[in-house]
């Protein structure tokens, strides 16, 4: 138990870095994922094809391979960065955006057809229909699944710990090496900090789910 209190600064540092990775990747993934979903329903066949291929491949790529690609292959391609956090953010947001695109697309499909028909009949074009009528309603219904994807993102950020980023899991690994006699408590401490993020988010998801269910 003492080991957690003694090393609280390291835990806190790792916790903040995990939070940072999750928030930045989450925002990028939300934007990019929504764009991908919009491309998936657009009238341009090439955009549809691109979005479909991207989502299909990325969803079936193990996260470790995505990290390996971002941390090892990208620098060789000339995409260099000073910190490995950048590689982690690239991998996490590229990976998560595919799942967000799928969720948003299922939300678009759940909006009643009459909404789009009405919007078109008053003369709106595709981008107006999508941004003013469909997406606001679709995003609202997919908030609970989106939160679940973000919870998965927080947990997935732990893989960054194996790729030279000292976030919560990376710190935990270091502390476990340094405190061989109290490994269990070190890792329980790490678990506690993860639950500090994931359980409130899960609670939020269930609350929103109930609210949205009433609205519809």
């Amino acid at each position: 138990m003492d080991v957690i209190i003694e090393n609280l600064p390291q835990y806190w540092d790792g916790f903040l870095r995990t939070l940072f990775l999750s928030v930045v990747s989450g925002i990028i993934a939300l934007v990019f994922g929504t764009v991908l979903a919009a491309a998936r329903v657009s009238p341009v066949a090439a955009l549809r094809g691109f979005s479909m291929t991207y989502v299909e491949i990325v969803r079936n790529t193990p996260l470790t391979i995505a990290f390996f690609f971002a941390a090892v292959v990208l620098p060789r391609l000339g995409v260099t960065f000073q910190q490995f956090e950048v590689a982690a953010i690239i991998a996490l947001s590229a990976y998560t955006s595919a799942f967000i695109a799928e969720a948003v697309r299922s939300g678009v499909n759940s909006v009643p057809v009459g909404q789009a028909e009405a919007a078109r009949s008053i003369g709106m074009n595709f981008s107006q229909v999508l941004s003013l009528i469909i997406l606001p309603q679709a995003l609202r219904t997919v908030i609970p699944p989106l939160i679940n994807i973000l919870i998965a993102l927080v947990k997935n950020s732990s893989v960054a710990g194996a790729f030279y980023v000292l976030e919560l899991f990376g710190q935990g690994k270091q502390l476990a090496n340094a405190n061989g006699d109290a490994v269990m408590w070190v890792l329980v401490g790490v678990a506690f900090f993860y639950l500090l993020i994931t359980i409130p988010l899960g609670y939020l998801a269930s609350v929103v789910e109930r609210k949205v269910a009433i609205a519809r």
Partner: protein
Amino acid sequence: MSSVLYDVPGPKARRISLIGSIIGVIVIGGLLVLAVMTLAQQGIFDPKRWAVFQLPEVWALIAAGIGATLAAAAVAAVIAFPLGLLLCLLRISDNAWVRVPTRIVLEFLRGMPVVLMMLFVLLVFATSSFIAVVAGLVLYNSAIFAEIIRAGVQSLPKGQREAGLAIGLTSFQCRLTIELPQAIRRMLPSLVAQLVVLLKDTSLGYIVAYGELLRAVQVMADFLGPQYLFPVFFVAAAIYIAIDLAVSRLAIWLERRGSKRAAGGVAHVPVAGIPAAK
């Protein structure tokens, strides 16, 4: 839905979208060519580097990596499913003393990164990395399986349980013989989709030094020299993704098959007071 979002494109819109598509393809193709050229400059496509694939040892290592990946996934799936079923039964138990603690355990397991569980088992119980990987996957996925099956049980019409109890089955018999078989069938696509996740998560074994495909790549690169990292990594990544794609295709196929059957009479909603029959 998507076709409702826009008018059928006329000749002008079609021309614009065609030109846009061509430009897009050129841009993406250009980026790919640029990437390939950057790699070629570093001698990645030097035939000498790819000659490693003539060595039977390399293929043997890759095969061992695939074997280790599939073994961990198969063992974990076989243990996790019955355990998930058990956890589901405990989670929906009539007895609050069973239900509430199970719920806490499930919330705990679901909120935890899988890697952390693997590392925990590896370090605290000082086991082999295979057991650590399997244990991590089992703990996490049994919790998810339990939640999926629970969602399936809850989606059943109430009459199923009421009828079971009315003909004198005990609560447990009713769960086992009436509700679970229907719930599992109904949730089959989600369960298979979770199997894909499980298969993908075996790659986390890389972090706890389990000899799965990616670790095999690393070992080979350490052994043969870093210049072989790229060819071997690309081949291994392609194999990994191909296996995952195949399993998710299976999930999609199962879903289609399921919904076709549903349309043929196994309705999700009871028709005219007759509950959905299997």
